[in-house]
């Protein structure tokens, strides 16, 4: 089932387009890596997929419903989210719990199951022991991890991550890719991730979309057919 589809998308910030004629499909339950050099409009592509930006021409479609028929829940970790205001008056648990607000609406109370999901999310990123710390007291890497936990606590069907491993050491990066692979394989979550560290993440990804520059300085995604499709260890049998 196709989760999101871009067809002949053209988009730019000034007068010249930065993305020109991009077409691609993302399927449910895929772990997709988007790569390309600096300025290749990777973040722009994510924002177009999320509907935060409107294309000049072409179409972007994102399924409103998940496979189970319920409303699609998206967890998003933007680029440099860890550089947020360090004086933000919240402790870790409060911030991670806010990831559930979209599910709870305005008045519903936290259920025991949701409390358990929050706890599990924090444990998965190794931040449970820091749950009562003020977020301003955390390092950049720790902030990045609680932002990932916040996205996970909303029990998303889709996780969209913009350079999520920035500021992490090598062991943590590998641990993070393994966790994402687990989310995809075990829970059927779709993960779309912008990354520069393809050599590390490659073996965990189902597919890599790379943005390449054409002679006219516009960036174009390799079309789905010509895109190098790479399968992770769990998909070798396919």
């Amino acid at each position, binding site marked *: 089932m196709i989760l999101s589809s871009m067809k002949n998308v053209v988009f730019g910030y000034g007068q010249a387009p930065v993305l020109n004629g991009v077409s691609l499909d993302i399927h449910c339950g895929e772990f997709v890596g988007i790569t390309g050099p600096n300025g290749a409009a990777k973040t722009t592509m994510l924002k177009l997929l999320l509907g935060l930006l409107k294309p000049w021409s072409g179409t972007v479609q994102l399924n409103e419903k998940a496979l189970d028929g319920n409303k699609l829940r998206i967890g*998003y970790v933007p680029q440099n*989210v860890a550089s*947020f205001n360090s004086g933000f*008056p919240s402790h870790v648990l409060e911030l991670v719990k806010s*990831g559930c607000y*979209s599910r709870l609406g*305005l008045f519903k109370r936290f259920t025991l199951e949701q409390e358990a999901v929050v706890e599990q999310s924090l444990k998965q990123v190794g931040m449970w022991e820091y749950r009562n710390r003020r977020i301003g007291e955390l390092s950049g890497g720790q902030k990045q991890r609680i932002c990932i936990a916040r996205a996970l606590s909303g029990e998303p069907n889709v996780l969209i991550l913009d350079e999520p491993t920035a500021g992490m050491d090598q*062991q943590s990066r590998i641990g993070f890719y*393994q966790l994402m692979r687990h989310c995809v394989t075990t829970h059927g979550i779709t993960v779309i991730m912008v990354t520069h560290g393809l050599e590390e993440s490659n073996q965990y990804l189902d597919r890599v979309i790379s943005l390449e520059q054409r002679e006219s300085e516009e960036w174009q995604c390799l079309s789905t057919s010509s895109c190098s499709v790479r399968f992770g260890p769990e998909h070798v049998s396919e």
Partner: protein
Amino acid sequence: MFEYEFMQRAFWAGACIGIIAPMLGVYLMLRRQALMADTLSHVSLAGVALGSVLGLNPVVYGFVVAVIGGILVEQLRRTYRTYSEVPVAIIMTSGLALAIVLMSFRSNLNKSFSSYLFGSIVAVSDIQLWLIACVALVGVGYFFVLRRPLYNLTFDEETAQIGGVRVRGLTFSFAVLTGMTVAAAMPIVGVLLVSSLMVLPASLALRLAKGFTAAIVMAVIIGLMGIFSGLTASYYINTPPGGTIALTLLIFLLVGIAYQRLRLVLHKRRARTSWGKVLNEQEYQNKGESHFEI
């Protein structure tokens, strides 16, 4: 002091604005819009001048124009996304310029204008008191009902939007509430000091509180204490109430900062001997291990 009706009214008005203004101030500061209150008070002044020139109720006109100003700032903020202080500067200068030009049409306006510039809480009229009470009630309801989307919006606008928060509607309604609060607070401390009621209690609460709700509650308590003690002081030492309230809040802030610094110094001194050992232990434990677990 309370045998005088004007003082009773002043305390009621102070209580209403002491609840809503610091609450709003916490959100304004976190959204990097600390000068929004200053801007809207200048815009509101233009409304007051317009009402006076047209021979209509200046309070109502000041209120309406402040709300329109809030909406304009929000609209401009979308145009100047990277420079959030630019719309504030544009609207502030426009509001002040308009007020000066409108004032020139009526030569006898200067006297009544000084009460708007410097505030006169002890001369709060019935209509102003009702206006302040209504704004406080609407504001408290707004922040209670929308506390979750507002938290997400304040933390990060993009993730809030993706999480289903109607960002546009929420930011515009927030701007409208800011305009309403500024217009209602003007009679207390005046145009020049209106932002002190929002920014000073919030600045101290943001330094001291550990959580978001705690910060809001603390800001309200500090705001109420500042207004009540400022009003009392101004009554006994016969000083202008607006300035006295602002100075009281400033003293609270300075004492709070000094207390925090002192606590930090004492904490550092106590921990100096054991720190090295703890850090080495943590480094050893974290070495070569991933933080993530499945």
